[in-house]
């Protein structure tokens, strides 16, 4: 399983703080996972639409679209950060 977390505006728009997704059979990246979520349609395709700036982390480290995702990983999607 892959643990997927959503924060801030994404969490509110998607109506969930996170979920467990079965690990795909083939090697997967952050971009693949985002595409899988986008294909759910509705609010998922709006929030993860092309042109939206969404950041991702894998196992609590900032990730890039090509970062690999493996079984047991924790993947988070969130908007650009605004702390300080």
């Amino acid at each position, binding site marked *: 399983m892959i643990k997927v977390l959503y924060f801030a*505006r994404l969490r509110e728009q998607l109506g969930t703080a996170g979920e467990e997704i079965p690990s795909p059979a083939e090697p997967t990246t952050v971009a693949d996972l985002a595409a899988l979520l986008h294909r759910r349609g509705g609010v998922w395709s709006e929030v993860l639409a092309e042109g939206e700036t969404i950041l991702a*982390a894998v196992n609590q*480290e900032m990730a890039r679209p090509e970062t690999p995702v493996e079984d047991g990983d924790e993947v988070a999607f969130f*908007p650009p950060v*605004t702390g*300080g």
Partner: protein
Amino acid sequence: MIDIRVQAEPFDIAAEQEGLWRGQPRVGALVTFVGLMRDMNQGDRVGRMLLEHYPGMTEKALLAIAEEADNRWDLQGIRVLHRVGDLRPQDPIVLVAVTSTHRGEAFRACEFLIDYLKTRAPFWKKEITDQGEHWVDSRTTDEAAARRWKQE
């Protein structure tokens, strides 16, 4: 010595500063940045703010930023405190305090730390204004400020 804290409770600026230098006679300079909550942002009166973070990753990201500062400058101590949860105007939100033997290192490290924190640590602000509530957008000026510290 690096001290990182993410907490809902308020903090005492003077006590946090003193904890960094008291009893350490080699410290010759203490530089502190404190970010405070304003009651106005882009023309709207802001009555409250909610600060969200990513427990676990936020602490790791702050530690990584502090370790980078520690490697780049000759420092005696680094303390980074960031509040989360419910905040009101005038509340201190963030404290970055750095000690060193001489002032130059502490000044530069402190500015680096807050510039990197603002663009790399997972925190998100939601403002509650007269016009309703909204998530604060990131600023390109913050990105530009962080880029200045990139090493060739």
